[in-house]
């Protein structure tokens, strides 16, 4: 289970277009350095650094040191955890609804025969 604090961090991190843009760039090309990530972006290096720190705190970006180079990797696991939490719940509800419908219809059938 993802803790409420972590969940909050993930939603906050995802609530910003620039940060989603950084995640998209990592999805297209994983393991980039800060300089590589800044290329062609309409953001200052400082802004990118700040956004990356928030993404790291939310565990959506994982830093890996290779020598003196810091590489950034997209980590979709927290999004998967959130998705399963909500979709899992909906799925259960849908199954229960189907179960109820089945019972109701079978009950109806019993009445007719």
């Amino acid at each position, binding site marked *: 289970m993802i803790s409420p604090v*972590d969940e909050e961090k993930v939603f906050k991190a995802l609530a910003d277009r620039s940060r989603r843009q950084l995640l998209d760039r990592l999805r297209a090309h994983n393991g980039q350095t800060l300089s590589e990530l800044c290329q062609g972006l309409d953001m200052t290096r400082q802004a990118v650094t700040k956004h990356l720190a928030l993404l790291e705190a939310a565990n959506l970006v994982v830093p890996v040191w290779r020598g003196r180079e810091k590489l950034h*990797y997209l980590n979709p696991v927290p999004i998967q*955890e959130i998705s399963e939490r909500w979709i899992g719940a909906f799925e259960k509800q849908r199954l229960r609804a189907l179960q109820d419908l089945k019972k109701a219809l079978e009950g109806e059938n019993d009445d007719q025969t």
Partner: protein
Amino acid sequence: MTKPEFVYVTYISSTPEKIWNALQDPEMTKQYWVQHRNASDWQVGSPWRHEDYESGKVDIVGKVVESTPPRRLVLTWASPADAADAAKHSRVTFEIEPYEDAVRLTVTHGELEPDSPMLHGITKGWPIVLSGLKTLLETGKPMPMTARRRTKPPQ
């Protein structure tokens, strides 16, 4: 060392020993790793295989490269068709580190063939497996979707 292609991290409220055991115990893997088990004697140099818990159909094969319980496990990883072709083997590293009051599990998957079906499969698969493992260890119950056998790749 080549640059890893994918790095997945999850924080689990558990112990390194329990996580280590959960990667190898068939009764655990069948609950979070799409009804599969990992079979090996887990000695360095030994083969391992990822197979369907019930039918035994083998989906992934490889060798144990490094085993330092309960901290670090390195495996090679290939589809059975590529078992003889070392160039097509990728490499998976599990790192288990205590982190504050939880444990940080990092899975690094590298040396993958570009645009291979394996690459596409693992990018969908790892987040599901890791998040399933976290739920199982923290709640004692599997998530319905990870305990189920996957009959076709998720869309």
